């Protein structure tokens, strides 16, 4: 295994995050804090408990998921798109490095950044609402799996995108609506019955439900199903990346 290659890719990606720390870390924390002020304190104070949990606390896992998904995709997609855009990708393609090693470097760094952001948001939330994590290990498992799988998804978008517009289009037009409609701010039990069925086709519902269960033991779907869905998503992304590298899709012409 080319450990040195993994290390320099990982370090380079993390260094990029530190150099732009205001954008990488401060920005998602500030926007999440604003959500807590608006939804948690201002509006949430007028909402009764949801599934026995105060509204302010109830939205914490959803807000974390919102940040994890968007940041994982943004970090990983930009990390591989930028060398493609500038042409410096030639060096990675000509190096004695396997697909797995490239993924550990790029996706590992993107997932690390997202995990740091997620934990900072969790700490920030503690200033606004009382927090209790019922199953810390499950919470960490969901956190890690979500960061890795969506960083992988972001990496695929970065490989696929030919320009900056395409880089933004899926996160903006697909992921953000799915997260907002996936129960970030509500339980799907609060929806009319027909919409409850429609919502079950949104994969993000399963992520938020499982993550919320690890906090409050309250879930829209079973935790096993949530775990299975995220593992299937992870396996699908891995297969797609493997195929892209094997065929050289948008990489090796």
């Amino acid at each position, binding site marked *: 295994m*080319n450990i*040195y*290659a993994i*290390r*320099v*890719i990982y370090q*380079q990606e993390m260094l990029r995050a530190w*150099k732009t720390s205001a954008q990488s870390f401060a920005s998602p924390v500030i926007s999440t804090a604003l959500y807590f002020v608006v939804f948690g304190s201002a509006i949430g104070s007028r909402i009764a408990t949801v599934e026995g949990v105060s509204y302010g606390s109830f939205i914490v896992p959803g807000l974390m998921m919102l940040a994890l998904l968007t940041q994982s995709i943004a970090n990983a997609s930009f990390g591989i798109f930028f060398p493609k855009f*500038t*042409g*410096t990708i*030639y*060096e*990675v*393609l*000509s*190096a*004695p*490095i*396997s697909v797995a090693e490239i993924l550990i470097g790029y996706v590992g760094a993107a997932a690390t950044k997202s995990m740091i952001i997620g934990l900072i948001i969790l700490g920030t939330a503690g200033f606004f609402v009382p927090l209790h994590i019922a199953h810390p290990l499950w919470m960490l498992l969901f956190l890690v799996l979500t960061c890795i799988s969506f960083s992988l998804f972001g990496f695929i978008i970065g490989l696929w995108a030919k320009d900056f517009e395409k880089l933004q289009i899926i996160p903006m037009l697909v992921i953000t609506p799915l997260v907002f409609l996936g129960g970030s701010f509500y339980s799907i039990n609060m929806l009319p019955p027909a919409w409850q069925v429609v919502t079950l086709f949104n994969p993000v519902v399963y992520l938020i439900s499982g993550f919320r269960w690890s906090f409050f033991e309250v879930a829209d779907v079973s935790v096993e199903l949530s775990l299975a869905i995220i593992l299937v998503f992870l396996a699908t992304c891995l297969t797609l990346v493997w195929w892209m590298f094997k065929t*050289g899709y948008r990489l*090796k*012409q």
Partner: protein
Amino acid sequence: MPPIVSIANLSKTYDTGYQALKQVNLDIHAGEILALLGPNGAGKTTLISIICGIVNASGGSVTVGGHDIVKDYRITRSLIGLVPQELTLGAFETVWHTLCFSRGLFGKKPDPRYLDQLLKDLSLSDKKHTLLMFLSGGMKRRVLIGKALAHQPTVLFLDEPTAGVDVELRKDMWALVRRLRESGVTIILTTHYIEEAEAIADRVGVIDHGELLVVDDKQALMHKLGKRQLTIELDSAQASLPAALTPWNLEMSTDGGRMTYTYDPLKANTGIDALLQAVRAAGLGIKDLQTKKTSLEEIFVNMVHQSK
């Protein structure tokens, strides 16, 4: 001695249907400087890109150091360094950081002493901690060479290394290439500057429309394909060529003051002696004589012209 790079029946057809390489066969010997000459779009960069792993071949095979570039890619790629044609560098890293990145990427443990020496050899020591965005074009080109050499490769590909580079830097680059060759590195460079190939290459390959037209020792190529020309300057301009001189297929200058005879220097009888006698017999006075060897450039232009 087995070739360091062996290319067999290599072909590449892009998704657009464009056939960039057609059954190319080439052996590159260890320690030589091979120049691949060809016009834009001839297939030079595609050939290099396949060997380095940047482009997938459509057919054929390549070995580097006896190892297949697909099956044994870890071994072959660690032997190769590539300097790309474009100035493809990041902007916000320092020279030192980008060299360390390249060395690590190719699986070599950090070696600050070697990289310091490399910077010195490339006259970049004073730019060690400068951001790449603040370097001039020539310095960026040298950084790219440094990145390619950071992992101490034994085969170095230089894709148009002096494109857009001023004369002084071009000569510095040639000196560097010669020093690398002396240190045992095999160098393959693509260029469309004939003088570059003429100045530094041991062997020259001419590629056009994806086909390798010829590969030979530079001197042998010039000897084999090079013609000589004898220009006779007359002491008075002539309105037309005397009929007695027709067998020599002379070219008359537009002002009628010079006649040029093209001959094969390898022939026992070049025809020069008879021509000079015929000129005198025709009553023409000779003011001056000049002979000229065909340059590599003229050989190249002829070959490409014939291949069309």
